[in-house]
């Protein structure tokens, strides 16, 4: 079932980390927020993950995960977006084998939230999905 159609056709405009939360803002007032791990894949490899942010890895500058994501997908639009029926993981496909994955890693805590046009879809603990109406 496609719960994430609002993402299709959108472009990623910004990625921001505030405290433990990550915010991915797309065009047309669509946003994804998460405190859980996420990762960017391209050409069959991991480009960067939330776990890498700020790590030096022996480089002159520590990894800036937000910049890496934007550099990889900023000129692309979302082709498909799917939610794994078992885990609740959200995969946003930008085409050309470039995918941004928002992972659920808990049987109890919520992970990603998708805000689109005033409604909100939340990945609950254990991977169930809930659709919240506007207040």
């Amino acid at each position, binding site marked *: *079932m496609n719960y994430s159609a609002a993402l299709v056709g959108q472009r990623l405009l910004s990625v921001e980390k505030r405290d433990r939360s990550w915010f991915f803002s797309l065009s047309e007032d669509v946003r994804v927020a998460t405190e859980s791990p996420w990762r960017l894949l391209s050409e069959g490899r991991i480009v960067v993950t939330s776990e890498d942010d700020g790590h030096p890895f022996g480089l002159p500058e520590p990894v800036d995960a937000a910049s890496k994501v934007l550099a990889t997908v900023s000129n692309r639009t979302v082709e498909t977006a799917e939610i794994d029926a078992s885990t609740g993981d959200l995969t946003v496909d930008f085409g050309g084998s470039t995918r941004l994955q928002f992972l659920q890693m808990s049987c109890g805590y919520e992970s990603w939230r998708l805000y689109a046009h005033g*409604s909100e879809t*939340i990945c609950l603990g254990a991977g169930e999905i809930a659709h919240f*109406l506007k*207040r």
Partner: protein
Amino acid sequence: MSVAEKKGRVYETDDICALRGEAGGPDRFFVRCTLAVHLLDAPGVSRWGLWAEISGEDSVIIRDAWDDPGQDRLPPMQARLSNRVQGYPDTIDLPVSLRLTGPSTRPELSFPADSLHPFVQECLRGVSTHRVKEWLDGMASE
């Protein structure tokens, strides 16, 4: 409600909302819950996220039990739906039962089996995945 009035009368988080009464009226309390609807043609459930209005007494019980691992042993509470669901007769104030489920999970709602409201009847019967898509399309077009 204006932004200034909201600032003075409303306390809200992603989980709860308290609305100070107007002109000496009673305060009102709301909790963000989920409502599970069984899928008829796929495993599992689809979940609505809905606000429910609770009494002042129950708001104290919920606040005190919010971080209690044993909160799911509390008896269900009577509440009222606080969202309008598109495509049905008005769903505001539909009676629901609210049950706490755990410190990291949202309270769950359930409808009384004898309700004649079409939204309640459809939820109690279960729905197809196609129907869930129609619901989501309705949410997107609100």
